[in-house]
């Protein structure tokens, strides 16, 4: 079933690459593929189970212990589900495009490899998907972006490729240190390699942190993100923020935290500090941005900072077990909430670009009158992003902060500043965009059309549902099962 979830979008990409479909047919082929993938994942979800479920394995290079292994636990299933959902929304999002068929082919390709990354249980396959996602995004930004899209795409590409090479090295070293050579994630989680202290585990850990840190991104390797977002088409930005950034934090949990718990615990504090610096720095810098997309992009640095803080706390082996569980639950919920919320915000930004070809906030104002639905959606998404209770971001941030306070109280307190500054910057954005006088050149600004309304409503309804009743999601994530044995009892 999981294999289907990966193959359907990839097949759709293949079809789109060769079959001469019209623009509308291409769009619905890609959307349909993502939707089928989502359905396949929901079937897995409905089947329930604990630990890794829906496991399937096909030998590929037995001599090296490499195989097509798929299977999901609560964390990867929830991330795969939300990724598929973001893909459905992003591909269905109405766009004015040149070479539409190729665009949708790349979208479907990206959907397949992104979902594949979350459902695979083989590190080499993980690495391949990690890199292929980069290729897909490179083309989406470079070909369909605007402004200085080529430079932005190249910067994104070079940065994350440098990171992914470090990850490859780390993966190889981990595999080589297994009793028998294998790239099976389950085996590495059960018997973590490189448990001893020493230079090699430290270096491998560093490689993973830098590699995943670039992708996440964390301070100070985040500077590729804003140009990539600004110049990408709206739906690609939604995918970049909603799906691709999660690969970094998912990787951090899956590999360093679960496969190298001892080393992780030794380096948890510096990682937590990086998280807090990202929280504060991301929000302060976002506040100064006058470009709509840059402002949202920097809030991603801030939000992923919360996630990294939560992950670092979970792996710290300090404090109470309750605190670490809360922090990790919060971190995973933050990933999902951020995917939905920032995905929605970037789709909104895409709509703004389609209508105005401008992101400069001072050039806007008073849109609440001409575009009330857009205003409503943006307001809800902005409040969700600033962590208003009753919406999904709060559920995540509350747990991260409470958990972090139990382990690194001072870092948690400093991190709280982030939620104050994000409040200021999002409210400022809302005022600049939607309230006050309507500039003359925006008189013809149209409201969201029906497709846009439906898609945003779906994403934001989930944000509200998680905000009010997160129980089902917290049960699905099942964070206690993710924290490695070294953390137990501490």
């Amino acid at each position, binding site marked *: 079933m999981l294999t289907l979830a990966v193959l359907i979008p990839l097949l759709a990409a293949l079809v789109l690459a060769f079959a001469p479909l019209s623009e509308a047919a291409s769009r619905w082929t890609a959307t349909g593929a993502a939707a089928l993938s989502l359905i396949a994942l929901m079937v897995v979800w409905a089947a329930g189970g604990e630990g890794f479920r829906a496991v399937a394995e096909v030998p590929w290079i037995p001599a090296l212990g490499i195989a097509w292994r798929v299977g999901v636990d609560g964390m990867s299933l929830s991330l795969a589900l939300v990724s598929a959902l973001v893909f459905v929304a992003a591909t269905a999002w109405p766009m004015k495009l040149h070479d539409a068929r190729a665009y949708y082919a790349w979208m479907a390709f990206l959907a397949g490899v992104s979902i594949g990354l979350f459902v695979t249980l083989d590190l080499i396959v993980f690495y391949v998907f990690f890199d292929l996602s980069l290729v897909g995004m490179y083309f989406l930004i470079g070909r369909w972006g605007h402004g200085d899209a*080529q430079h932005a795409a190249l910067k994104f590409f070079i940065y994350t490729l440098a990171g992914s090479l470090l990850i490859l090295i780390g993966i190889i070293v981990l595999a080589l240190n297994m009793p028998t050579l294998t790239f099976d994630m389950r085996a590495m989680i059960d018997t973590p390699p490189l448990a001893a202290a020493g230079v090699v585990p430290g270096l491998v850990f560093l490689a993973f942190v830098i590699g995943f840190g670039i992708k996440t991104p964390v301070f100070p390797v985040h500077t590729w993100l804003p140009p990539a977002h600004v110049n990408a088409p709206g739906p690609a930005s939604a995918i970049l923020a909603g799906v691709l950034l999660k690969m970094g934090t998912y990787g951090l949990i899956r590999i360093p935290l679960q496969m190298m718990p001892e080393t992780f615990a030794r380096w948890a504090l510096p990682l937590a500090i990086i998280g807090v610096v990202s929280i504060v720095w991301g929000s302060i810098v976002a506040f100064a941005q006058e470009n709509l997309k840059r402002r949202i992009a920097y809030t991603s640095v801030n939000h992923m900072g919360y996630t990294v803080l939560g992950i670092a706390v979970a792996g710290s082996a300090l404090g109470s077990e309750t605190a670490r569980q809360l922090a990790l639950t919060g971190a995973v919920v933050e990933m999902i909430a951020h995917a939905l919320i920032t995905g929605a915000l970037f789709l909104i930004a895409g709509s703004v670009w389609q209508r105005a070809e401008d992101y400069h906030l001072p050039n806007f104002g008073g849109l609440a009158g001409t575009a009330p639905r857009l205003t409503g959606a943006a307001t809800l998404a902005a409040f969700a992003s600033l962590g208003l209770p009753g919406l999904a971001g709060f559920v995540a941030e509350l747990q991260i902060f409470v958990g972090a306070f139990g382990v690194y109280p001072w870092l948690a307190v400093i991190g709280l500043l982030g939620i104050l500054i994000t409040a200021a910057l999002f409210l400022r954005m809302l005022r600049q965009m939607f309230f006050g006088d309507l500039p003359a050149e925006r008189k013809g600004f149209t409201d969201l059309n029906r497709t846009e309304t439906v898609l945003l409503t779906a994403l934001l309804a989930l944000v509200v549902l998680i905000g009010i009743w997160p129980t089902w999601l917290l049960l699905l994530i099942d964070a206690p099962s993710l924290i490695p044995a070294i953390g137990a009892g501490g």
Partner: protein
Amino acid sequence: MIWALAYFPVLAGLAIWAIGGSRATLGAMGAVAAAATLALALVAGGGTGRFVWSELIVLQAALPPLAQSVAILVPAILLPITLFATSQEDTRGLPRLVGLMLVFTGGMELVVIAGDLVTLLIGWEIVGACSWALIGHKWREQAPGPSANFAFVLTRAGDLGLFLAVMATMGATGSASYAALGTLDGVPLALAAFGLLVAAVSKAGQVPFAPWLFRAMDGPTSVSALLHSATMVAAGAYILARLHPQLSAAPGFGAAAIAVGLGTAVLGGIVALRQTHAKKLLAGSTSAQMGLMIATVGAGYPGVAVLHLIVHAATKAALFCAAGVAHRVSGSFDLRRMGLAASLPAATVLTAIAALSLAAVPPLSGGWSKEEMVKALEHAGPLLGALTIVSGGLSAAYATRFAVAAFGPGETRDARTRPGEMAALALLSGGALALSALWLPAVNEPVAAWIGAELPSGSRIGLIASLVAVAFGVLAGVHAARADSTDPTPEWLGLSALYEYAVIRPFHALSQTAADFDDTTIDQSVIRPFQALSQTAADFDDATIDGLAPGAATGAMTGSARAARGAIGIAVQGSAALAALGAGLGERLSDLIPDGTGRVTGMAGADLRRLQTGLAHHYYTILMVGFALAVGLLIFGG
């Protein structure tokens, strides 16, 4: 059942917003929804509720009598204000206004019924968000937007205290329930108590958070009436009273509450007395009155504070309605241009009742609850009692000044009253009048017993001093209303300017500097070492490439640790090659697109495709080479 108290008004409000309708329809729907909420509050007493989020986070609700009294108060005030709003405010956006006021009420009810700090925090911030939307209601105008943002951010700064309280309580006990809060001691208790105090004083518009209340005056008058009486600011005073049993053990908590409360009571009184803007006068008064309540809680009489909260709510809502009527008739909020006694005789009588209650003139209700607070603070110390009396005198002065200036003698204008406005004013002033029954021991004793309030005993000299201060205050107020011609003083004694120059502008500058630094220095400092490294590696690669590969292979065969080192060496080479590739691409890119002017739109599709095909080709070559190396390494290593 108990949760319905929170979600019913929210759903009803959203429905009314969606349905819309004429003034009369909206007024009727809003009033029915408020009445239904009131009925829920009446029947939900003593109930409890649990809503499980996870094993670790359980939302809880409870409605002991003290909380129930406030739960009843909120919809009881909302109802007349809905009538007022649908009668007075512009029809444009009226469904949104009526709907959001109900949502606001739902958030406040969640604060009231909360039985744990997480639930409290949820209601607390929903109230803040609704106040943002309501203050910014007239979004087409320039002023409300920034004011709404200012109010939300400043109160959220205080909310961080509540976050801290949640963190401290859950960190120490694993639960955020009020019961767990009661078991704290030491540092966690201090953090929780002072965190809650900061959150409460920010919501209640105390010094130094007071300026947001002035900015909130850019919202519609009906919003001010609700925000200053039974919601938002009231949440601050309420929560300190509600959690007093849990928090009072924290060292210094009572003293801090008294210091902030009494300080604001006196300063807010001065600010109010010197205002010429009708609503800002009332806003200064709200800070002062909330200050008295908070000080009373600090002195150990939370029940008395809640009783004053109830009396004050009716009184202050009535006065805001009066200010709204005066504004509609006179065309401005300037107290010097009103004088509406002849034009609006009925409104003048109703305003006089509410103003005298705010002035604490016996036998009106405000007089009773204020004297109870004077007695409570007398217990805490004679000086504190004296300050309370001074604050009471100031209240008498500004309340009198408001009433005399707004509804004193003046020319007769064409002033048609509107039934909704007058009904609201009559209900609220009537409520303040009816509450005067609290002077009777036969009434105040059972009420106090029901909510668990201990009524303090006081000295005769205190009572006399207090009444004398009120009398002087009334005289001073009458005099001020007649003599008044000065322009408004700096907002909130310069506190607003302090925020502007000491917080907001420096933060803008800091943020701009950080953004520039991020764009230039950080970006470059990450890229440059990488470029330098890859250059070095590339040189190394040129010089020693023949020697390294067999070396690495041999090394790999001797053991996995060495293989790891080999892998790192290969990776360095890989990244060097990559960097070279990147640099080469960059050059080609520059050739293709003249830097700065090159835009994708201007590029021929063929060139673009050629570029990308080239890139993919190179990339896959590198990928395959890397993969082959990895496989080779594994074969040797395995």
